[in-house]
């Protein structure tokens, strides 16, 4: 498969949120606004690309029995680098996303790609796969964040659209579940219309 096809596969056909339903915790927890969702998506993309590349280049050296713990340690190292970088350059975003930044370690998408793809493929292919899945994840989080922000505070990317408070429930926890549920319904409807 060409690298371009690898990237586009992660965005549409194997979209991590809407198709594979992985990484639900950050998806629901950080999408209170479009910009927060996007920030979380980019942070995860960074870890995904770096860990995919590192794991594909060392996978021959790791004994099969201890591969999962080894992958987790590699991912945790990149998450720590990300934490230090974000504390230095984007302290505001780091504060807002809070607990969900260290929790990238246990994001099933990252470990899933390491196990299912990076451990069996070349370094550049793994990087392309990381870019594709990362873009798919970032797009999904931005869309969900935009929908919740639009309904919950009547603004998008922080720009007020109409002079109203919006429905607060969409910013709060229940709104996350309900908004994602209905987005999935629309996605399914769209998919069955095409096929």
């Amino acid at each position, binding site marked *: 498969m060409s690298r371009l096809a690898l990237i586009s596969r992660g965005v549409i056909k194997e979209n991590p949120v809407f198709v594979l*339903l*992985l990484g*639900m*915790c950050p998806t*629901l*927890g950080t999408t209170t606004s479009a910009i927060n969702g996007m920030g979380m998506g980019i942070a995860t993309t960074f870890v995904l690309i770096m860990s995919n590349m590192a794991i594909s280049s060392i996978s021959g050296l790791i004994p099969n029995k201890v591969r*999962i*713990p080894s992958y*987790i*340690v590699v991912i*945790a*190292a990149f*998450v*720590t680098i990300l*934490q*230090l970088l974000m504390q230095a350059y984007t302290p505001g975003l780091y504060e807002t996303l809070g*607990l969900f930044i*260290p*929790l990238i*370690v*246990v*994001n*099933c998408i990252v*470990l899933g790609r390491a196990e299912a793809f990076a451990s069996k493929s070349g370094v550049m292919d793994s990087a392309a796969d990381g870019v594709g899945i990362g873009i798919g994840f970032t797009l999904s989080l931005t869309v969900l964040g935009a929908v919740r922000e639009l309904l919950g505070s009547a603004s998008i990317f922080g720009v007020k659209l109409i002079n109203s408070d919006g429905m607060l*429930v969409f910013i*709060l*926890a*229940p*709104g*996350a*579940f*309900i908004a*994602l*549920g*209905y987005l*999935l*319904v629309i996605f*399914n*409807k769209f998919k*069955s219309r095409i096929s």
Partner: protein
Amino acid sequence: MEYIIIIISAVFVNNILLSQFLGVCPFLGVSNKVSTAAGMSGAVTFVMAVATLVTYMLQYFVLIPLKIEFMQTVTFIVVIASLVQMVEIIMKKISPSLYQALGIFLPLITTNCAVLGVAILVVSKEFTFGGDPHMLNMAQSVVFAVASALGFGLAMILFAGLREQLELANVPKSFKGTPIALITAGILALAFMGFAGLV
């Protein structure tokens, strides 16, 4: 009194699943039946209590004295992963019947973000149980972890009961499976919001 406030707050008001979104993957994954949901919750309660105790000690007796707090994420996840493995081995030897009931859920717990989430939460966030904001001490941390796990279990079992009923309902095609489950979870979260202001 303080402990009662911690328990009520962690189980009902700030339920880790329905208001903090920790552990949503197993929540959607293994909540098709009440019995599996109960098994998973039992295993999570046990691991979360032990993991929080160990990581708490690690944070205050190793990481802070050595001034390497930035290693928190790496050390905590390694400790949790090995702890899960150890619990699995010990349980297999000591209580095969318990292992039979909970065993299959144990490997899944390493990547359950609720365990790592609670471990990080108790050492990094100030709580306002009974007076001024303060860091939790060791006993409070363990109580908080057990109560959070109970809250997780409560939400899991309630949700599994709802999903068993949903199986029988006539759901439109596009809503089948995860979408209707998510909307149901949203309504459950809405119900839990009623507990806000209890403590």
